[in-house]
């Protein structure tokens, strides 16, 4: 049979974000795959050099729409290390709490996406409904659902009250029950097993060779987790298990994430019940002494690594960000080879890729020569009027 090369992406219904895979096919079987990236490069590292450390905090938060806390925490650890700031224990505990809430939110989101890619849309509806609980927790604590902006130089911006603590614990209890159901679903439901077992194989030695990180690596039996290997924040004092699985396939990645959810709930309860007393932030000077620091952080998708070089001014000399997806994409190419075309979306989704996502309703009006920013209500009104003019009027129904 002759070989055919087909491009998948950068715009494709099965992909949520712009990336491109060149797939070499023999019939429906994939014999070769290459990954092409760069469709979403926003020049953030250059932009960071022109902003102050405080402004960069908000820039770095926007590296990712889901791991926003992961990136700022990794960045801020570097800044505080160079400034020799003594971040209060309570602030570190609150950062850890947000880190775990973020993991819960990200893993539930992934579970839904995986369900959706399998064609199991009920799972998608269920997990995304439950995910609202953790988003409510984040909103209650920080005022925001996605970009929590809880970190600030030297600590955190908001404290946690007794009512908030009770509210979070109540929601976590509910999620714990739901997750038990998902675990039984993931390990017993026959259609789910049929769809995930032996799909997207990534053996142990290949995972090491290609530098896989996070749940993708752990599902290939690699006991690698920054929270255990090089504990940061207050992870050294928390009691949790490092979850690994040895099936090296999409099923393993599903089980690892589902079990990690349970560990996260455990940690959230531990943090809230033993929250250290004291201040939540210290002052950090605007100018950061010259020096270099490198730190890593276990984001929901895997190891996040930041390098920072300071030069005695209020702006960084160089900031480097490596998100986990870039490390994992090398493994995706391997996972697809030898597999079937129909499995591609699921295999790609299984590493939980994030090419970064951003969406804003800013309209440039050339006649008025200025930007107009539309809120949700205005956009909704505009939409209704747009269709009214075309004869579609729901107000008459």
């Amino acid at each position, binding site marked *: 049979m002759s070989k055919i090369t087909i491009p998948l992406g950068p715009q494709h219904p099965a992909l949520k974000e712009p990336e491109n895979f060149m797939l070499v096919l023999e019939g429906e079987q994939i014999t070769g795959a290459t990954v*092409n990236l*760069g469709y979403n490069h926003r*020049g953030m590292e250059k932009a960071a050099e022109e902003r102050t450390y405080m402004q960069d905090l908000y820039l770095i938060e926007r590296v990712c729409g889901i791991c926003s806390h992961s990136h700022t925490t990794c960045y801020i650890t570097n800044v505080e290390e160079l400034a020799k700031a003594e971040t209060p224990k309570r602030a570190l505990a609150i950062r850890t709490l947000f880190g775990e809430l973020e993991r819960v939110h990200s893993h539930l989101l992934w579970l839904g996406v995986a369900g959706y890619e399998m064609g199991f849309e009920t799972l998608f509806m269920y997990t995304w409904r439950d995910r609202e609980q953790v988003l409510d927790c984040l909103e209650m604590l920080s005022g925001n659902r996605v970009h929590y902006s809880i970190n600030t130089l030297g600590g955190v911006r908001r404290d946690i009250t007794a009512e908030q603590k009770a509210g979070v614990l109540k929601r976590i209890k509910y999620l714990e029950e739901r997750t038990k159901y998902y675990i039984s679903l993931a390990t017993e439901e026959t259609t789910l097993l049929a769809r995930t077992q032996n799909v997207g194989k990534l053996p142990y030695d290949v995972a*090491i060779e290609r*530098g896989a990180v996070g749940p993708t690596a752990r599902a290939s039996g690699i006991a690698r987790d920054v929270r255990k*290997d090089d504990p940061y924040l207050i992870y050294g004092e928390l009691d949790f298990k490092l979850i690994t699985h040895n099936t090296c396939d999409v099923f393993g990645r599903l089980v690892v994430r589902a079990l990690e959810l349970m560990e996260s709930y455990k940690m959230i309860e531990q943090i809230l019940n033993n929250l250290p007393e004291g201040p939540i932030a210290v002052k950090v000077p605007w100018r950061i002494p010259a020096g270099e620091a*490198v730190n890593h952080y276990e984001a929901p998708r895997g190891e996040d690594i930041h*390098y920072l*070089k300071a030069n005695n001014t209020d702006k960084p000399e160089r900031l480097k960000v490596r998100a986990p997806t870039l490390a994992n994409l090398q493994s995706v190419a391997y996972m697809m080879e030898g597999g079937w075309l129909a499995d591609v979306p699921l295999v790609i989704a299984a590493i939980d890729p994030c090419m970064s996502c951003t969406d804003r309703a800013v309209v440039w009006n*050339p006649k008025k020569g200025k930007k107009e920013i539309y809120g949700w209500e205005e956009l909704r009104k505009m939409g209704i009027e747009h269709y009214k003019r075309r004869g579609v009027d729901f107000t008459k129904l």
Partner: protein
Amino acid sequence: MSDFENEEKIKASIEAKFQGAVSNALVQRRNRVWLDCATEKLPELLGWMKTEGFVYLATITGFDEGENLGACYHMTNARVIVTVRVKTPRANPSIPSVLKIFPGAVSYERELEDMFGIKIAGLPAGRRYPLPEDFPTDQYPLRKDWKFVPPAEETEAK
């Protein structure tokens, strides 16, 4: 004796193995080791470190110091991060490729070429990353002398 026995041991073993090629080695704190390496010895050093358990090349950070360009290779065994710095003259910047040892480093090396204009000796030709195909090939955005000039504002077609 230092508090960081394990880190000191890593530093000492690299210094012993690569005498003359390695300088400014420093144990910064727990789990962080920094060192400078002679550019031509880089693949050999990383290859040896890989056999010593540093199986991950986490990423490569390019930098611009004015007279010299260079790159930091962040090597890790998941626990300790050893950052290997190499420098290369701005007039003719070139660093040997480490793809033979770390095949996964291809996007990091292409980034050095695209963003800093450092020639990676031994990197096979391929699609550029991360800049778009139509970006000028003689401009390197992450160099310090490169400034972003916003494009002229588009006017309405008449």
